[in-house]
C-alpha cells in the first residue's frame, strides 16, 4: 500500500547547530517543541478532515448513488460506518488532550494504545474487501454513461476528488491507517527521549506499525485462502486446459516425492501438531456428514409417514371414537406434523447443510497443503544437493508455509465452532421433538376426554378392549358361518320305489352321513364313470378317484363307480 500524496507540513531539514552549546540546546529544544506542536496539530487537523470526508462519502455520496445495486454499495463502502464510529471516538479523545498541554503527547500515545485493537479489527475488514471494490470501479469505468453520472455526483459533494473520483475516495481509509505510524513518528522525533511521554509514544508508534503489518498479513492470508478454497465446477475442457506441462511435471514430481517418503528415502516432515489437528478435523467432518445423511433419512421417513391417511376411510359410522379419531388424525396431519416438518427443515436440516458446505474449504486446503509439502520437500532436497533453488521452487516453499500456518492457526477454531454449532443443531432437534409431542398430546388428550371409557386406567381399558374384541370376533365368526350356510336346502326328490329299498340298504351299510343325493343329471364320460339321474341316492366311498383327482368321487350306488363332483350335495 502506498501512502497518499498528502502535503508534508513542517520538518524540513533542521539547520545545523550554531552558537554556544547551552543557548543552542535551548534553541533546538524550543525548535523541537515547536515542531512537536506542529506535528500534534497536524495529527489532529488531518484526523478532523479525514473524518469529514468519510462522513460525506458514507452519507451524501453513497445515498446519491441510487443507480448502483445495494450489493455493489455494500462492497464499495464495506464497513465504512464502523470506521466512522471508531475514528469519531478517537478524534474526540485526541481533541480532549488539547486542554492538558503538559501531558498532551503522553495522552495521545495512550489514546492510540487504547484504540489499537479496534482500529486493527475495523480496518482489516475494509482492507479485505478493497480489491473487490476496485474491480467494481473498473467495471463502472467501462460504462461511460454510468461513469459520468458517478463522477458528477462525487464532484458535486467533494470537488477535490478529482477525475478518478470513486477510486480516490475508496483508498482514503487505507491511506489513513498507514499514515498513523508516520504521524506519530514525527511527534516522537521531536519529543525528549528520557521522558515518560516518549516511552508511551514510542509504544504507540510501534503498536500502530503492528496494526498495519497485521492488516497486510490478513489480506495476504485471505488471498492465499481464496486462491485454494475455491471449489470450482470445471468443465472437461477447462480441466484439460489446466493440464499443461507445468502441472503435469508438478504432479509427477509430487508422486515421486510421495513414493520416496513411503519408501523411507526421504524423511517425512513430521508435524504432530498438524496431524492431530487434521485428525480432529476429519472426525468433525465425519460427524457432520453422517448426521446430515441420517437426518435426510429421518426426513424421508417422516414424509412417507405423512403420505398415508388412514383417517380418510369412510365406514359410514356417524359418531363415537371412529369419528373422534378421524378428526384428531386429520388435525394432526394438516397442522401439527407439517409444522414439525417445516421447523425441522428450517432449523435443523438447512443449518446442517450450511455447516456441511463449510467443510469443503478446509478439506481443499489440507489437500493443497499436502501437495505443497511434497513440493517443499523436494525443494529442500534439491537445496541440499545443488545448493540453490529456482524462484518458482522457493515460491512453493512459501506457499506450503503459508498454508501450513494458516491451517494451524485456524483449524482449531474451525473445529471448535463447527462442534459448537453441531451441538446446537442437535439440541434444536430434541426441542422440536418435545414441542411436537406437546402439540399432539394436547389434541389427543382432548379427543380422549370425549371417549366413552376415558375414566378407565390404561390396563383396565386394555382388558376391556380385549374382551370386546373377543366377543365381536365370535359374532363375526357366526356371520361367516351363516353366509357359508347359504346352501341349497335339501331338495326332496321323489324316489322311485325300487330306489327306496336301495337307499335303505346303503343307509344301513354306510350310515346317513355318507349319503349324497345327485342334484343334477350326471352323465359319465369314461368307462368307469356312472351315469345317474337326478335324485339318485349314492353313498360316498371316497371323495377322490384312484388318481387323486378330487373332482371325481367313488360312490356306491348299490353297484360301484365314479361320479364327477358337480352335482353332489349332502342331504
Amino acid at each position, binding site marked *: 500500500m502506498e501512502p497518499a500524496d498528502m502535503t508534508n507540513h513542517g520538518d524540513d531539514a533542521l539547520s545545523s547547530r550554531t552558537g554556544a552549546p547551552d543557548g543552542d540546546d535551548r534553541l533546538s529544544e524550543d525548535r523541537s517543541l515547536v515542531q512537536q506542536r506542529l506535528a500534534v496539530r497536524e495529527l489532529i487537523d488531518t484526523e478532523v478532515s479525514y473524518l469529514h470526508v468519510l462522513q460525506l462519502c458514507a452519507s451524501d455520496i453513497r445515498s446519491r448513488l441510487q443507480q448502483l445495486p445495494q450489493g455493489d454499495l455494500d462492497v464499495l463502502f464495506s464497513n465504512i460506518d464502523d470506521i466512522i464510529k471508531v475514528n469519531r471516538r478517537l478524534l474526540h479523545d485526541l481533541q480532549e488532550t488539547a486542554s492538558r498541554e503538559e501531558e498532551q503527547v503522553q495522552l495521545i500515545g495512550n489514546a492510540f494504545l487504547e484504540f489499537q485493537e479496534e482500529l486493527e479489527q475495523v480496518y482489516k475488514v475494509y482492507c479485505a474487501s478493497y480489491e473487490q471494490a476496485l474491480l467494481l470501479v473498473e467495471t463502472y469505468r467501462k460504462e461511460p454513461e454510468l461513469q459520468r453520472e458517478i463522477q458528477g455526483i462525487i464532484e458535486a459533494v467533494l470537488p477535490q476528488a478529482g477525475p478518478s473520483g470513486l477510486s480516490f475516495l475508496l483508498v482514503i481509509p487505507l491511506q489513513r491507517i498507514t499514515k498513523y505510524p508516520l504521524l506519530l513518528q514525527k511527534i516522537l522525533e521531536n519529543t525528549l527521549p528520557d521522558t515518560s511521554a516518549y516511552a508511551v509514544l514510542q509504544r504507540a508508534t510501534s503498536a500502530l506499525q503492528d496494526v498495519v503489518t497485521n492488516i497486510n498479513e490478513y489480506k495476504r492470508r485471505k488471498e492465499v485462502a481464496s486462491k485454494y478454497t475455491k471449489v470450482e465446477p470445471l468443465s472437461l475442457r477447462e480441466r484439460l486446459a489446466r493440464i499443461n506441462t507445468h502441472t503435469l511435471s508438478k504432479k509427477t514430481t509430487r508422486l515421486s516425492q510421495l513414493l520416496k517418503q513411503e519408501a523411507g528415502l526421504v524423511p517425512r516432515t513430521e508435524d504432530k501438531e498438524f496431524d492431530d489437528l487434521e485428525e480432529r478435523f476429519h472426525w468433525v467432518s465425519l460427524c457432520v456428514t453422517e448426521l446430515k445423511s441420517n437426518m435426510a433419512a*429421518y426426513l424421508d421417513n417422516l414424509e412417507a409417514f405423512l403420505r398415508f391417511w388412514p383417517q380418510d376411510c369412510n365406514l359410514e359410522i356417524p359418531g363415537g371414537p371412529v369419528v373422534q379419531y378421524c378428526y384428531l388424525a386429520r388435525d394432526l396431519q394438516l397442522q401439527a406434523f407439517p409444522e414439525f416438518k417445516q421447523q425441522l427443515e428450517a432449523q435443523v436440516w438447512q443449518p446442517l447443510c450450511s455447516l456441511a458446505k463449510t467443510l469443503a474449504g478446509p478439506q481443499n486446503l489440507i489437500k493443497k497443503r499436502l501437495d505443497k509439502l511434497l513440493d517443499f520437500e523436494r525443494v529442500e532436497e534439491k537445496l541440499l544437493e545443488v545448493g540453490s533453488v529456482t524462484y518458482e521452487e522457493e515460491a512453493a516453499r512459501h506457499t506450503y508455509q503459508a498454508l501450513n500456518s*494458516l491451517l494451524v492457526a485456524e483449524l482449531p477454531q474451525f473445529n471448535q*465452532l463447527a462442534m459448537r454449532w453441531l451441538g446446537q443443531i442437535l439440541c434444536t432437534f430434541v426441542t422440536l421433538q418435545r414441542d411436537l*409431542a406437546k402439540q*399432539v398430546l394436547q389434541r389427543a388428550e382432548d379427543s380422549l376426554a370425549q371417549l366413552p371409557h376415558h375414566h378407565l386406567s390404561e390396563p383396565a*381399558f386394555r382388558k376391556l378392549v380385549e374382551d370386546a374384541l373377543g366377543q365381536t*370376533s365370535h359374532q363375526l365368526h357366526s356371520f*361367516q358361518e351363516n*353366509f*357359508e350356510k347359504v346352501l341349497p336346502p335339501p331338495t326332496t326328490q321323489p324316489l322311485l320305489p325300487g330306489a327306496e329299498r336301495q337307499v335303505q340298504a346303503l343307509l344301513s351299510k354306510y350310515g346317513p352321513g355318507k349319503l349324497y343325493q345327485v342334484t343334477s343329471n350326471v352323465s359319465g364320460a369314461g368307462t368307469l364313470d356312472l351315469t345317474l339321474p337326478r335324485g339318485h341316492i349314492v353313498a360316498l366311498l371316497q371323495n377322490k378317484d384312484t388318481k387323486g383327482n378330487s373332482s371325481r368321487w367313488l360312490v356306491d350306488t348299490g353297484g360301484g363307480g365314479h361320479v364327477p363332483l358337480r352335482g353332489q350335495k349332502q342331504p
Partner: protein
Amino acid sequence: MSWIPFKIGQPKKQIVPKTVERDFEREYGKLQQLEEQTRRLQKDMKKSTDADLAMSKSAVKISLDLLSNPLCEQDQDFLNMVTALDTAMKRMDAFNQEKVNQIQKTVIEPLKKFGSVFPSLNMAVKRREQALQDYRRLQAKVEKYEEKEKTGPVLAKLHQAREELRPVRDDFEAKNKQLLDEMPRFYNSRLDYFQPSFESLIRAQVVYYSEMHKIFGDLTQQLDQPGCPDEQRERENEARLSELRALSIVADD
C-alpha cells in the same frame, strides 16, 4: 343385475319383484363399499405404522452413529450429550414398538377378521345369483309348455317341468331371504365392532406422546437449552455460519 335382452330361456314373468331386487342391491352395495373401505383402511394403517417404525429407527441411527464417532473419546461434554440423546432415542423406539404392537392387536387384526367375512358373503351372493339363473331358466321352460297346445304329451312335460321348477324356486327364495336378513345385520355390526378399536387407537397415541413429551422434555433440560422462538434460532444459526465464514480457510460461496 345387468339388463339381459329377452331371449329364449328367459321367463316372461318378472319372477323377482323390482322392489326386492332393489333392496337386495342396495344392501349388497353398502356391504361392497364397506369391504372396500375396510380393506383400504387396513392397508393404510399398516403402511402408516410401518413408516412410523422406520422413522423411529432412523432417529435411533442418528444417535448411534454419533456415539460411535471418535470425538466421544476426546470430548467429555460431547460424549455426555450424545449418550443422553442415545438413551432417549432408544427409549422412544421401545415405546413406539409398544404402540405399534397395540395398534396391530386392537386395530389391524380386527380389521383383518372383519374383512375375512366378505369372501363368504360374496360366495353366498354368487350362489343366490346361480339359483336365480336356474329359477329363471326353469320358469321359462314352464311358460313355454304352458303356451303350447294342451295335448297329452305336452301336459305330461308341463307337469314334469313344474315339478322341477318348484324346488329350485324354493331354493332361491330361501337364499334370497337369508341374505336379505343377514346382510343388514352384518352391516350394522360394524358400529359396535369398530368403536373399541378406534378408542384404543386414540389411547395408544396418548400413551406414546405422553412418554415422548416427558423424555424429550427431560432431555432438553438436561442439555440446558432453553426454548427459544423460531426467529431467534434462525439468527443463532446465521451467527454460527458467519463465525465459520469469517475464517479464511472457509470458502466464500
